[in-house]
Protein backbone atom coordinates (compact mmCIF):
# COMPACT_ATOMS: atom_id res chain seq x y z
CA UNK A 1 0.00 0.00 0.00
CA UNK A 2 1.38 3.36 -0.94
CA UNK A 3 1.67 6.50 1.11
CA UNK A 4 -1.58 8.13 -0.02
CA UNK A 5 -3.53 4.91 0.56
CA UNK A 6 -2.26 4.58 4.13
CA UNK A 7 -3.07 8.22 4.90
CA UNK A 8 -6.52 7.78 3.36
CA UNK A 9 -7.28 4.63 5.36
CA UNK A 10 -6.19 6.09 8.69
CA UNK A 11 -7.95 9.40 8.25
CA UNK A 12 -11.15 7.90 6.82
CA UNK A 13 -11.38 5.60 9.86
CA UNK A 14 -10.75 8.59 12.15
CA UNK A 15 -13.42 10.62 10.39
CA UNK A 16 -16.02 7.86 10.59
CA UNK A 17 -15.31 7.19 14.28
CA UNK A 18 -15.58 10.92 14.95
CA UNK A 19 -18.83 11.16 12.99
CA UNK A 20 -20.37 8.26 14.91
CA UNK A 21 -19.32 9.94 18.18
CA UNK A 22 -20.72 13.26 16.98
CA UNK A 23 -24.08 11.71 16.24
CA UNK A 24 -24.46 8.86 18.70
CA UNK A 25 -23.20 10.06 22.07
CA UNK A 26 -25.59 11.58 24.60
CA UNK A 27 -23.61 14.53 25.92
CA UNK A 28 -23.55 17.54 23.62
CA UNK A 29 -19.92 18.27 24.57
CA UNK A 30 -18.92 14.77 23.46
CA UNK A 31 -20.81 15.40 20.22
CA UNK A 32 -18.79 18.54 19.57
CA UNK A 33 -15.50 16.77 20.34
CA UNK A 34 -16.49 13.95 17.98
CA UNK A 35 -17.28 16.55 15.33
CA UNK A 36 -13.81 18.06 15.71
CA UNK A 37 -12.28 14.59 15.37
CA UNK A 38 -14.37 13.89 12.26
CA UNK A 39 -13.21 17.15 10.68
CA UNK A 40 -9.56 16.29 11.46
CA UNK A 41 -10.16 13.00 9.64
CA UNK A 42 -11.70 14.77 6.64
CA UNK A 43 -8.66 17.07 6.56
CA UNK A 44 -6.48 13.94 6.44
CA UNK A 45 -8.53 12.66 3.50
CA UNK A 46 -7.86 15.93 1.68
CA UNK A 47 -4.17 15.50 2.50
CA UNK A 48 -4.22 12.07 0.88
CA UNK A 49 -5.71 13.74 -2.22
CA UNK A 50 -2.79 16.15 -2.36
CA UNK A 51 -4.93 19.17 -1.42
CA UNK A 52 -2.79 20.36 1.47
CA UNK A 53 -4.16 23.89 1.48
CA UNK A 54 -7.74 22.64 1.78
CA UNK A 55 -6.71 20.35 4.65
CA UNK A 56 -5.23 23.30 6.54
CA UNK A 57 -8.38 25.36 5.87
CA UNK A 58 -10.56 22.55 7.23
CA UNK A 59 -8.54 22.28 10.44
CA UNK A 60 -8.53 26.06 10.89
CA UNK A 61 -12.20 26.67 10.14
CA UNK A 62 -13.91 23.58 11.54
CA UNK A 63 -11.69 22.45 14.41
CA UNK A 64 -10.45 25.91 15.29
CA UNK A 65 -13.52 28.08 14.78
CA UNK A 66 -16.79 26.18 14.31
CA UNK A 67 -16.24 23.70 17.15
CA UNK A 68 -15.20 26.49 19.53
CA UNK A 69 -18.22 28.58 18.54
CA UNK A 70 -20.46 25.60 19.23
CA UNK A 71 -18.89 25.13 22.67
CA UNK A 72 -19.53 28.82 23.37
CA UNK A 73 -23.17 28.56 22.30
CA UNK A 74 -23.71 25.45 24.43
CA UNK A 75 -22.08 27.02 27.47
CA UNK A 76 -24.27 30.12 27.04
CA UNK A 77 -27.46 28.15 27.05
CA UNK A 78 -27.77 24.49 27.89
CA UNK A 79 -28.39 23.36 31.44
CA UNK A 80 -25.87 20.56 31.29
CA UNK A 81 -27.03 18.67 34.35
CA UNK A 82 -30.48 18.17 32.88
CA UNK A 83 -30.75 14.60 31.57
CA UNK A 84 -32.12 14.12 28.08
CA UNK A 85 -35.55 12.63 27.79
CA UNK A 86 -35.51 9.08 26.46
CA UNK A 87 -36.16 8.79 22.78
CA UNK A 88 -38.88 6.57 21.42
CA UNK A 89 -37.52 3.46 19.73
CA UNK A 90 -39.69 3.74 16.66
CA UNK A 91 -38.33 7.21 15.84
CA UNK A 92 -34.71 6.07 16.21
CA UNK A 93 -35.38 3.01 14.07
CA UNK A 94 -37.18 5.14 11.48
CA UNK A 95 -34.29 7.61 11.31
CA UNK A 96 -31.79 4.76 10.94
CA UNK A 97 -33.89 3.12 8.24
CA UNK A 98 -34.31 6.33 6.28
CA UNK A 99 -30.60 7.19 6.54
CA UNK A 100 -29.68 3.67 5.40
CA UNK A 101 -32.04 3.94 2.43
CA UNK A 102 -30.57 7.33 1.51
CA UNK A 103 -26.97 6.10 1.73
CA UNK A 104 -27.83 2.95 -0.25
CA UNK A 105 -29.48 5.05 -2.97
CA UNK A 106 -26.40 7.27 -3.21
CA UNK A 107 -24.17 4.21 -3.38
CA UNK A 108 -26.30 2.70 -6.15
CA UNK A 109 -25.91 5.91 -8.16
CA UNK A 110 -22.14 5.87 -7.51
CA UNK A 111 -21.89 2.27 -8.70
CA UNK A 112 -24.02 2.74 -11.80
CA UNK A 113 -22.55 6.03 -13.02
CA UNK A 114 -19.88 5.86 -15.69
CA UNK A 115 -17.07 7.93 -14.19
CA UNK A 116 -14.32 9.08 -16.49
CA UNK A 117 -11.26 6.86 -16.18
CA UNK A 118 -8.94 7.72 -13.34
CA UNK A 119 -6.11 9.84 -14.62
CA UNK A 120 -3.94 9.49 -11.56
CA UNK A 121 -3.70 12.13 -8.94
CA UNK A 122 -3.38 15.70 -10.14
CA UNK A 123 -1.58 17.67 -7.50
CA UNK A 124 -2.94 21.15 -7.05
CA UNK A 125 -0.71 23.93 -5.90
CA UNK A 126 -2.42 26.32 -3.52
CA UNK A 127 -1.03 29.18 -5.59
CA UNK A 128 -2.86 27.90 -8.66
CA UNK A 129 -6.17 27.64 -6.77
CA UNK A 130 -5.66 31.19 -5.53
CA UNK A 131 -4.90 32.34 -9.07
CA UNK A 132 -8.17 30.78 -10.27
CA UNK A 133 -10.02 32.43 -7.40
CA UNK A 134 -8.83 35.88 -8.35
CA UNK A 135 -9.16 35.44 -12.11
CA UNK A 136 -11.98 33.11 -13.23
CA UNK A 137 -14.01 32.86 -10.04
CA UNK A 138 -13.60 36.36 -8.69
CA UNK A 139 -17.38 36.85 -8.52
CA UNK A 140 -17.81 33.77 -6.30
CA UNK A 141 -14.91 34.99 -4.16
CA UNK A 142 -16.53 38.39 -3.63
CA UNK A 143 -19.94 36.82 -3.01
CA UNK A 144 -18.45 34.68 -0.23
CA UNK A 145 -17.00 37.81 1.38
CA UNK A 146 -20.38 39.54 1.24
CA UNK A 147 -22.12 36.41 2.56
CA UNK A 148 -19.75 36.17 5.52
CA UNK A 149 -20.19 39.85 6.42
CA UNK A 150 -23.99 39.60 6.18
CA UNK A 151 -23.99 36.39 8.23
CA UNK A 152 -21.81 37.97 10.91
CA UNK A 153 -24.03 41.05 11.19
CA UNK A 154 -27.16 38.91 11.14
CA UNK A 155 -25.81 36.66 13.86
CA UNK A 156 -25.10 39.66 16.08
CA UNK A 157 -28.55 41.11 15.42
CA UNK A 158 -30.34 37.83 16.15
CA UNK A 159 -28.36 36.84 19.21
CA UNK A 160 -28.12 40.11 21.07
CA UNK A 161 -30.70 40.92 23.63
CA UNK A 162 -32.90 43.72 22.35
CA UNK A 163 -33.20 46.79 24.53
CA UNK A 164 -36.94 46.38 25.01
CA UNK A 165 -36.73 42.80 26.22
CA UNK A 166 -33.81 43.69 28.52
CA UNK A 167 -35.95 46.37 30.20
CA UNK A 168 -38.79 43.94 30.71
CA UNK A 169 -36.62 41.72 32.84
Amino acid at each position, binding site marked *: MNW*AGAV*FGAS*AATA*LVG*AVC*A*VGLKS*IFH*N*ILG*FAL*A*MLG*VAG*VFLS*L*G*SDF*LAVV*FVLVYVGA*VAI*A*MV*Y*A*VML*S*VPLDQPA*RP*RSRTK*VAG*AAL*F*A*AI*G*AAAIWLV*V*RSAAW*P*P*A*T*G*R*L*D*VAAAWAGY*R*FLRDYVL*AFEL*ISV*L*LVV*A*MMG*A*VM*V*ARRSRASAEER
Partner: protein
Amino acid sequence: MSPALYLGFATLLFGVGLYGLLQRRSLVAMLISLELMLAAVSVNVVALTTLTGHDASMGQVVALILVGVAAAETAIGLSLFVAIHRASHSIDVETLSELKG
Protein backbone atom coordinates in the same frame (compact mmCIF):
# COMPACT_ATOMS: atom_id res chain seq x y z
CA MET B 1 -6.35 5.11 -5.71
CA SER B 2 -9.72 4.74 -7.36
CA PRO B 3 -12.40 7.41 -6.85
CA ALA B 4 -14.85 4.74 -5.67
CA LEU B 5 -13.02 4.52 -2.32
CA TYR B 6 -13.46 8.23 -1.73
CA LEU B 7 -17.06 8.16 -2.94
CA GLY B 8 -17.83 5.25 -0.59
CA PHE B 9 -16.27 7.09 2.34
CA ALA B 10 -18.29 10.20 1.51
CA THR B 11 -21.47 8.12 1.23
CA LEU B 12 -20.90 6.67 4.70
CA LEU B 13 -20.18 10.11 6.16
CA PHE B 14 -23.31 11.51 4.49
CA GLY B 15 -25.40 8.61 5.83
CA VAL B 16 -24.17 9.18 9.39
CA GLY B 17 -24.99 12.87 9.06
CA LEU B 18 -28.44 12.14 7.68
CA TYR B 19 -29.14 9.77 10.55
CA GLY B 20 -28.08 12.40 13.07
CA LEU B 21 -30.19 15.08 11.42
CA LEU B 22 -33.26 12.86 11.61
CA GLN B 23 -32.69 11.34 15.01
CA ARG B 24 -31.32 14.11 17.26
CA ARG B 25 -33.57 16.67 18.88
CA SER B 26 -31.01 19.20 20.05
CA LEU B 27 -30.51 22.04 17.56
CA VAL B 28 -26.72 22.01 18.01
CA ALA B 29 -26.55 18.29 17.28
CA MET B 30 -28.62 18.82 14.14
CA LEU B 31 -26.22 21.59 13.06
CA ILE B 32 -23.28 19.21 13.62
CA SER B 33 -24.96 16.57 11.47
CA LEU B 34 -25.54 19.13 8.72
CA GLU B 35 -21.84 20.05 8.78
CA LEU B 36 -20.91 16.37 8.44
CA MET B 37 -23.10 16.10 5.34
CA LEU B 38 -21.52 19.23 3.84
CA ALA B 39 -18.05 17.83 4.50
CA ALA B 40 -19.04 14.63 2.68
CA VAL B 41 -20.06 16.73 -0.33
CA SER B 42 -16.70 18.54 -0.27
CA VAL B 43 -14.84 15.21 -0.21
CA ASN B 44 -16.83 14.05 -3.25
CA VAL B 45 -16.12 17.18 -5.27
CA VAL B 46 -12.40 17.27 -4.46
CA ALA B 47 -11.94 13.52 -5.03
CA LEU B 48 -13.68 13.54 -8.40
CA THR B 49 -11.91 16.61 -9.74
CA THR B 50 -8.53 15.48 -8.43
CA LEU B 51 -8.65 11.85 -9.53
CA THR B 52 -10.61 11.93 -12.77
CA GLY B 53 -10.97 15.55 -13.80
CA HIS B 54 -8.87 17.68 -16.05
CA ASP B 55 -9.15 20.77 -13.90
CA ALA B 56 -8.24 19.94 -10.33
CA SER B 57 -8.18 23.53 -9.09
CA MET B 58 -11.92 23.77 -9.87
CA GLY B 59 -12.59 21.29 -7.03
CA GLN B 60 -10.50 23.35 -4.64
CA VAL B 61 -12.50 26.45 -5.54
CA VAL B 62 -15.84 24.69 -5.00
CA ALA B 63 -14.71 23.19 -1.69
CA LEU B 64 -13.45 26.54 -0.41
CA ILE B 65 -16.79 28.16 -1.32
CA LEU B 66 -18.54 25.33 0.55
CA VAL B 67 -16.39 26.03 3.62
CA GLY B 68 -17.40 29.69 3.48
CA VAL B 69 -21.09 28.88 3.16
CA ALA B 70 -20.88 26.37 6.00
CA ALA B 71 -19.16 28.91 8.25
CA ALA B 72 -21.88 31.49 7.55
CA GLU B 73 -24.54 28.88 8.19
CA THR B 74 -22.96 27.95 11.52
CA ALA B 75 -22.82 31.57 12.63
CA ILE B 76 -26.50 32.12 11.82
CA GLY B 77 -27.52 28.74 13.25
CA LEU B 78 -25.74 29.25 16.56
CA SER B 79 -27.15 32.76 17.00
CA LEU B 80 -30.65 31.44 16.30
CA PHE B 81 -29.96 28.71 18.83
CA VAL B 82 -29.02 31.26 21.50
CA ALA B 83 -32.09 33.40 20.67
CA ILE B 84 -34.46 30.41 20.74
CA HIS B 85 -33.03 29.25 24.04
CA ARG B 86 -33.50 32.71 25.49
CA ALA B 87 -37.12 32.85 24.33
CA SER B 88 -38.27 29.38 25.32
CA HIS B 89 -35.55 27.93 27.61
CA SER B 90 -35.36 24.82 25.51
CA ILE B 91 -33.54 23.72 22.38
CA ASP B 92 -35.46 20.51 21.97
CA VAL B 93 -37.07 20.73 18.55
CA GLU B 94 -40.02 18.64 19.68
CA THR B 95 -41.04 21.23 22.28
CA LEU B 96 -40.77 24.14 19.83
CA SER B 97 -44.31 23.73 18.53
CA GLU B 98 -45.87 27.12 19.11
CA LEU B 99 -46.70 27.56 15.43
CA LYS B 100 -48.58 24.26 15.29
CA GLY B 101 -52.19 24.82 14.33
